[in-house]
């Protein structure tokens, strides 16, 4: 929630992303957008609708279906003074652009002994349960989170999305900014005035004393849903959203776990080697003497995302499954 006294208005996450881009493009002529169907179409999801009318086709560039090409072009432009926002329609297409992200953008500053930099944002998506099957449903935030030199943002509310995207664009480092496709329609309050949010600061989405639910992106809503159910049976869950996996706000996570002595980490990426593993180990390490139970992890099942709704819905954590896990961890019946 915005902690500001200024006037607030309610917008969708989609609008928040749109507004952040529009504001940054007005502020800084170096910012441009490149991607497929970003101009008149405003992306298939309409998130960028209207931007081309204000900024023109020079700054909202419709690219061919050439992800490796325009990702690389983006990095080159970033290295030479521009601030590109590269639109990668589906997170699954990270598979096509990982060289530009992980071998080029992430490393150029270090390899050049600090002389070059790549201030670029790769906007992409995550999330299953849209019946889009195995190549359009993955949540691959673990990939960029693994690479030193990258920052990774996972906004869960309109307020966070707007403030974090503006910071990502202003950051001198490559940032992978991943949006949950099902969250674009979530509404929330956002200040009328300009604001930014720092990368690397977790947000306590709900205060509680009995168990810590660390949740990212799409799983924040699921964790909040679980917390409500838990409250009914007398368990007060604290829901913490790291908001960025890199940098990770270790302090806030550890402090919460020390307070509650139990923690579950929930993320929609595959559970195996997922971001939940990293976060859980940070908590297990930092709060070891305060913990009453092992730190648990919940991610997507370790399977390609199936098309059939009968199977797909079983692959991701839900408020109900988080509730069950939390209840068990708290020893409640």
């Amino acid at each position, binding site marked *: 929630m915005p902690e500001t006294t200024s006037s607030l208005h309610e917008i969708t996450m989609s609008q928040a992303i749109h507004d952040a881009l529009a504001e940054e493009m007005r502020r800084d002529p170096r910012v441009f957008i490149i991607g497929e169907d970003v101009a*008149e*179409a405003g992306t*298939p999801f309409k998130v960028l609708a209207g931007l081309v009318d204000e900024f023109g086709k020079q700054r909202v560039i419709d690219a061919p*279906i050439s992800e490796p090409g325009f990702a690389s072009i983006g990095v080159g432009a970033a290295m030479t003074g521009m601030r590109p926002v590269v639109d990668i329609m589906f997170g699954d297409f990270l598979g096509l652009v990982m060289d530009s992200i992980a071998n080029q953008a992430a490393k150029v500053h270090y390899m050049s002994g600090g002389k070059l930099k790549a201030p670029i944002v790769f906007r992409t998506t995550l999330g299953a349960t849209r*019946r889009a099957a*195995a190549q359009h449903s993955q949540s691959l935030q673990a990939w960029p989170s693994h690479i030193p030199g990258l920052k990774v943002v996972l906004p869960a509310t309109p307020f966070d999305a707007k403030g974090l995207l503006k910071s990502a664009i202003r950051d001198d480092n490559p940032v992978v900014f991943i949006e949950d496709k099902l969250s674009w329609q979530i509404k929330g309050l956002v200040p009328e005035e300009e604001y930014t949010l720092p990368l690397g600061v977790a947000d306590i989405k709900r205060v509680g004393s009995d168990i810590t639910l660390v949740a990212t992106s799409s799983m924040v809503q699921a964790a909040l849903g679980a917390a409500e159910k838990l409250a009914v049976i007398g368990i007060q869950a604290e829901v913490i959203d790291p908001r960025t996996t890199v940098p990770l706000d270790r302090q806030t996570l550890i402090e919460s776990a020390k307070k509650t002595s139990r923690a579950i980490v929930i993320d929609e990426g595959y559970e195996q080697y997922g971001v939940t593993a990293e976060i859980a180990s940070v908590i297990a390490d930092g709060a070891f003497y305060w913990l009453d139970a092992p730190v648990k992890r919940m991610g997507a*099942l370790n399977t390609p995302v199936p098309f059939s709704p009968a*199977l797909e819905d079983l*692959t991701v954590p839900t408020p109900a499954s988080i509730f069950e896990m939390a209840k068990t961890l708290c020893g409640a019946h």
Partner: protein
Amino acid sequence: MNHPNPLDLEQGLHFYEQMLKIRLFEEQVNQLYLTAKMPGLAHLYAGEEAIAVGVCETLRKNDYITSTHRGHGHCLAKGAAVDRMFAELLGKSAGYCRGKGGSMHIADPESGNLGANAIVGAGAGLATGAGLSIKLRASNQVAVAFFGEGAMGQGLVYEALNMASLWQLPVVYVCENNHYTEYTAFREVLAGELRDRPAAFQVPSKEVDGQDVRAVYNAVLPLVERARRGEGPAFLICDTYRYYGHHVGDINRAYYRPKQEEEHWRTARDPLQICAQWLRGEYAVPPALLDEIGQRVADEIRLGLEFAMQAPFPTPSELMEDIYA
């Protein structure tokens, strides 16, 4: 010759029936979407039927194809059955991929279909790999890659063409130019001319009216045969049009594609009408015969859908099967 004479009446009627099957299938899929009976979206092939049918009719059952997100037509033309196609689209166990693939991933190795693909351009690489495998196994097959003109944006396609040409692989690349990628006219995202691209790799190419199944068949037949003889890859560029939106949910599309243009293709360049015209004109096929085919295909679609609607969903125990071979 394995192939019937393209001027053979039987063959002509078969072309017509295959195209009609795809058309009615796709119209039914659209209905399933509009009535909220199908999970997710689908990219319809209606309007482009002559390409899948014209090409696949030159192929043997064990020849390979790779397909795209707009793949239903390729799958049916290569020999997939309507009932199991519908079942897959509805996420049922009886579907070609046990409900795990859905519209964009239908694969049927039994009919040589290595799979539709949701990554634009990916099939061109895979078909080239099948071509290499054919050559190494000396198996006398041919691989065909179907893809849209949008895939010509992918570097992979050029890397594949280069290797196919270098190593003279038995691959025929079929580029379906339906003039739009998703919501962008292809001229806005494609420099130069399509035909110059295969030429750069010395891959012979042809351009054909993709709405005339006979023209497609006649154009591709020699390309497939020379590939089978070991004379290397070829490229076919088909001029075509999709009747519906990019996917079933793309309904208001006037901002990127004029209504009159859609009308023109539907009325003046419809592959079914063009085929029916020459069947009636050159083969004196009576309208009743075409009606009979129409009835038969409509029945097949109806029964196929009934089968799929009644088929059970996969059980949870199937979820973790098939991850490893």
